[in-house]
């Protein structure tokens, strides 16, 4: 049973437009969420995180939104750039405990020039 789901395996966006990547989770105990970006044959790079006490966190072109009632989070990239083309993973954890992180299957973003 997958606790963190990224239902869109791929997404194509025109350069300069907004990219919206979605993530759903099932465990209401998750209280910390992270987004990572991964290029082929490299390790994931941390992008942005959000605690469950917030509903929005912004860092430059990246904004993460959290809707706890819907158990849904999204990553917005504005404006999208060709260098953003990569696989994006969301991850969730229960911080008062084992500090384990559960990852989604990833969404491959392609930004078209």
């Amino acid at each position, binding site marked *: 049973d*997958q606790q963190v789901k990224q239902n869109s395996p791929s997404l194509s966006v025109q350069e300069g437009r907004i990219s919206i990547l979605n993530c759903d989770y099932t465990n209401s105990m998750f209280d910390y969420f992270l987004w990572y970006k991964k290029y082929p044959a490299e390790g*994931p790079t*941390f992008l942005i995180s959000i605690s469950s006490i917030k509903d929005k966190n912004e860092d430059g072109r990246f904004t993460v939104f959290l809707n706890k009632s819907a158990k849904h989070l999204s990553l917005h990239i504005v404006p999208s750039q060709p260098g953003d083309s990569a696989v994006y993973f969301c991850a969730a954890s229960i911080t008062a405990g084992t500090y*384990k992180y559960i990852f989604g299957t*990833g969404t491959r973003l392609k930004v078209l020039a």
Partner: protein
Amino acid sequence: EADIYQTPRYLVIGTGKKITLECSQTMGHDKMYWYQQDPGMELHLIHYSYGVNSTEKGDLSSESTVSRIRTEHFPLTLESARPSHTSQYLCASSEVGSGTKTQYFGPGTRLLVL
């Protein structure tokens, strides 16, 4: 910028060989992790450690073993490699009990067992 290193980056090896994948971090993080990832799939936790002399098995069963003799070093060993072990192995670390709960990853080792 996270300082976590993995060697080798790529490894092609024959069935039955013993291999050790190295992972080191210079951030003084207490927690370290090993994940296995196949293309198009999620990262599966196979081992983690809370600190020196502490190791636990992760959510995905693995024939590999780990050790944590020093804070900065968390090697993973396969006693007898098989083609089913072909995958990408990712090491990560994080702090414990601090404000940040971010997990930082190394560059990964891509393993091919023939």
